[in-house]
């Protein structure tokens, strides 16, 4: 399979040959992969494709292969959050998004690697070992949906699903030079997504181009009565695929170009904004003064929620188990061995932040700061259509570079976490290279205004060549 084929190209190939051949060619490519992007391949993929060939399928994704992040439940297919503690766990049910993909005719290729329990920015903390960036095998692919971004970038899957709690779709999209969308909170059902920080996260698609993002959104987004935070709202995302930003007002938060930003990243972002001006948009600088506090607020909330979400992994009903004299000892040993270091640190910090005596100082304070961060967005977006800035302050770093210094790893999320605190949508699109590594432009919209950011991203793609750049392995 020629790399970087988009969904319409794949549908054409299926019409010319068969869904089985298309799927088989992806499986062949994956077989030769060096990036460790997939954790588990589905035994069913070929059968599904064959069935589509035999019986036909009217769905918009009939025969289209897709890769799924390790934390999205797939019935009968191992789902471990790349953690030892979920070793051997096979969900007895499909996540809402998986049901929808299957109904649309998609072929699930397999599961993709991630930072353990989505806690990271590098996909290095996986129980399956790190995923490598297809642009430079010495570098991280970003995280936590590193596998989902890397396999798309490496041409091992045309599209994939990731999840974004504090940038986990957009960061690897930026680092791997693909497109990734974090939808508005409530846009896609979280039913079946294994929670890390439930008040912040959303499932999001990754693809090589904006049109495919819209196509996947048309399939997976929408109301699900099993998720109480799911919003009942109709929308057709592919309606937004128009090359038209004339009169669009762009806000550029000065805080997103703050201390520590890589010069080449900064230039690529400004060049992109300049391009928008050429295309008929206007921009103004805006200030979002609480951005500098967003990171601390985000991490406290995420860790607090995580400490509770991950309590169920106690060895009793599924997954890894270390025996002990009594249940509490069993649980403590199981969790000590089953979780990796970063996950344990976050659980401990979250437990601490919620505990008697510290609840108000950390947890409650973080939620109040969250309100202020959200108000920054409300104010900024009141006067402009979208906000823009670099997705990540620097290109992908070297594997192992930050692994022993959690704080430096957290600081990389400075531009992505405020979006999750506010619940607004954001898309990352390639906007150039810095020292041969991709740079992502982040386009942020109003609540449920995905269509405006999709339109902005699509127009950019139509008027630039950035998304034609390929990693050396694929080119």
């Amino acid at each position, binding site marked *: 399979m020629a790399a970087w084929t988009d969904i319409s190209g794949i549908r054409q190939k299926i019409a010319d040959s068969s869904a089985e051949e298309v799927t088989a060619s992806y499986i062949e490519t994956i077989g030769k992969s060096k990036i460790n992007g997939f954790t588990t391949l589905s035994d069913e993929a070929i059968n599904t494709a064959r069935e589509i060939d035999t019986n036909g399928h009217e769905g918009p994704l009939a025969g289209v292969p897709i890769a799924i992040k390790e934390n999205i439940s797939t019935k009968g297919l191992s789902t471990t959050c790349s953690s030892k503690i979920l070793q051997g766990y096979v969900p007895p049910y499909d996540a809402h998004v998986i049901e929808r993909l299957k109904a649309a005719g998609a072929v699930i290729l397999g599961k993709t690697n991630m930072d353990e329990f989505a806690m990271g920015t590098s996909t290095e903390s996986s129980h399956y070992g790190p995923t490598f960036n297809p642009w430079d095998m010495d570098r991280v692919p970003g995280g936590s949906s590193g596998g989902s971004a890397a396999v798309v970038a490496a041409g091992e899957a045309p599209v994939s699903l990731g999840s974004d709690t504090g940038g986990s779709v957009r960061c690897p999209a930026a680092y791997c030079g693909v497109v990734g969308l974090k939808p508005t909170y409530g846009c896609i059902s979280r039913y079946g997504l294994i929670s890390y920080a439930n008040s912040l996260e959303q499932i999001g698609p990754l693809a090589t181009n904006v049109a495919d993002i819209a196509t996947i959104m048309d399939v997976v987004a929408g109301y699900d009565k099993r998720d109480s935070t799911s919003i009942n709202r109709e929308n057709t995302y592919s309606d937004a695929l128009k090359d038209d930003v004339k009169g669009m007002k762009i806000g550029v938060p000065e805080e997103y170009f703050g201390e520590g930003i890589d010069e080449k990243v900064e230039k690529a972002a400004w060049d992109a904004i300049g391009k928008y001006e050429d295309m008929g948009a206007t921009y103004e600088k805006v200030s979002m003064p609480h951005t500098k506090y967003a990171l601390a607020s985000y991490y406290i909330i995420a860790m607090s929620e995580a400490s509770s979400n991950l309590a169920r992994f106690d060895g009793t009903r599924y997954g890894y188990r270390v025996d002990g004299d009594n249940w509490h000892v069993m649980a403590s040993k199981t969790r000590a061995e089953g*979780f990796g270091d970063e996950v344990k640190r976050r659980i401990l910090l979250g437990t601490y932040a919620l505990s008697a005596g510290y609840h108000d100082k950390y947890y409650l304070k*973080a*939620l*109040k700061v969250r*309100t202020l961060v959200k108000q920054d967005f409300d104010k900024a977006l009141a006067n402009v259509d979208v906000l823009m800035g670099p997705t990540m302050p620097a290109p992908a770093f070297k594997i192992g570079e930050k692994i022993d210094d959690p704080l430096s790893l957290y600081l990389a999320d400075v531009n992505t976490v405020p979006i999750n605190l506010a*619940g607004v949508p954001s898309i990352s699109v390639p906007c150039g290279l810095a020292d041969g590594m991709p740079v992502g432009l982040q386009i942020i919209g109003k609540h449920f205004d995905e269509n405006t950011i999709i339109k902005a991203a699509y127009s950019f793609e139509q008027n630039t060549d950035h998304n034609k750049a390929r990693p050396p392995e694929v080119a």
Partner: protein
Amino acid sequence: MITKEEVEHVGWLARIEIDAKESDAYAEKLNSVLGYFGQLDEVDTEGVEPTYHVADIVNVFRKDEVTGSMPQEEVLANTEHKQEGNFKSPKIM
């Protein structure tokens, strides 16, 4: 500053076994992060309401209608520790 003893207590609360050797290392790493979190003290949040949910919705319910359960075999499929249809664990105390 979180102490070694606090680390061990939090470890117990979180059911993560931490031995005395590890607790020092944990304390050091956790303190660097807690120090960073401390910058929130600078923010004036007087009169600011906490945001628990970004979506401003209330009253989401389901009807009291049975939608079915899983077969016992499927319920127990992910563990070897079972007996007569029950999950089995070590004694509690």
